């Protein structure tokens, strides 16, 4: 009988997992918030802010367990400082799922007023009204980056077609322009609204050194000025 059982075991092929077992049983909202927050953390780290590795390494089940304790959009907020200059603070704020109105912006302003921030990153879960967008420019004295949560599901800078970007300092920029005897308006351009420029938070006038090292583009260096 035992011998027969062994033979049976050998003959039986391993049944592949059903597609149902691959489906995420948790809520779609928590998954989306997890991905958006993780990408936002990576974005802050890439901009030179200090972000604990534990925040980025946190897994989806861990996030869900943490989120289930007390689900509140304000818990997703995160404040940190620039590694090179700790006096410069940035705050990451998630907006509620409803369309963002002027009242929401004022509320965020009151929350962040005491923080003495130099930059703010707003992550929206729905559309923002045009008046609210204008109000951001009027109310906040510093730069505010606005992202949709759906834009941050994936870190675009990890894509294979994206080359290495390095920001040139003021001295390096002056040296480059002098070397080639050009003005920054004559350099190839990168729009301020470009996906990569928004990710890194490049300001107008910034010159970026782009290093290509790929099968498609070959090895070379180019420069782009943010317009």
């Amino acid at each position, binding site marked *: 009988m035992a011998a027969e059982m062994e033979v049976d075991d050998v003959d039986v092929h391993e049944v592949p997992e059903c597609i149902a077992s691959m489906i995420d049983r948790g809520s779609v909202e928590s998954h989306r918030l997890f*991905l958006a927050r993780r990408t936002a953390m990576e974005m802050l780290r890439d901009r030179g802010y200090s972000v604990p590795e534990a925040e980025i390494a946190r897994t989806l089940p861990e996030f869900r367990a943490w989120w289930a304790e007390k689900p509140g959009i304000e818990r997703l907020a995160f404040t940190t400082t620039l590694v090179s200059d700790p006096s410069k603070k940035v705050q990451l704020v998630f907006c509620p799922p409803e369309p963002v109105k002027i009242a929401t912006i004022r509320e965020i302003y009151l929350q962040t007023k005491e923080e003495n921030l130099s930059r703010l990153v707003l992550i929206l879960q729905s559309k923002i009204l045009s008046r609210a967008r204008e109000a951001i420019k009027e109310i906040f004295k510093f730069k505010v980056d606005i992202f949709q949560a759906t834009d941050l599901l994936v870190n675009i800078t990890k894509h294979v077609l994206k080359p290495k970007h390095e920001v040139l300092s003021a001295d390096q920029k002056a040296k480059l322009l002098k070397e080639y005897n050009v003005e920054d308006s004559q350099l190839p351009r990168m729009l301020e609204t470009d996906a*990569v420029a928004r990710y890194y938070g490049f300001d107008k006038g910034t010159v970026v050194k*782009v290093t290509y090292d790929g099968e498609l583009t070959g090895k070379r260096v180019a420069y782009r000025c943010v317009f």
Partner: protein
Amino acid sequence: MNEAEDEKAQVTIKFKKNIKWTIHYESTGLNFEVHYALQEQPHILLAQIAQRTARSVFVKACKNIDRCEVNKPKKIDNNTINTPITLQTAGVNFEVFHKLVDYLDINEVRSNDIHAMLNTYGVEAARATIIGEVKGVFGAYGIHVDMRHLNLIADFMTFDGGYRPMSRLGMGQFSTSPFGKMTFETATKFIVEAASHGESDTLDGPSASVCLGKPVKVGTGSFGLLQNFSLEQPVAM
């Protein structure tokens, strides 16, 4: 029609009328069961019915994506080429792929829609896509083009941070030389445009210089010669 045939026809009709069958289905999540309750029924092939039904059942659709095919690694002489299994879609919607980040290698996603690449991944990804597409067109015919040419094309098309055509339309927007534009295509259109807007041409470009019979400012034409005409005094003997 004889009596035997008439009787046979009546039996057939009677048999058809007496068929009793019911169908219902039960579903939980992604699993579903179809139940056939058949009485006084001849043998039927359920496989055909299932296949026909499966083709007509609507499961799920994504905006802008019409069709999706799985490309498996190809076999040449029983040797599998080491390439990953890929999905190829007709239509582009990156947001759908981004939601499937747990199942797809999102960092390897490519598209021949340069505008979509520009909006989603930025100008540098769009530039690389242009190079890849041009290379692919020539590669299909076994033509090798030096990378410098492709880089030049892609750099021109993405120079202003967007994506402009490498044609008279793209040239018309950004070229400052009216004669240069005229010598390329649609001379009448450009000459009227230049005259009506009072444009001027410095004749720096080769096309513009040749157009007016001037030496081109490249090579030996890029400099002038000055001759000293003050004659030397004859030496007294």
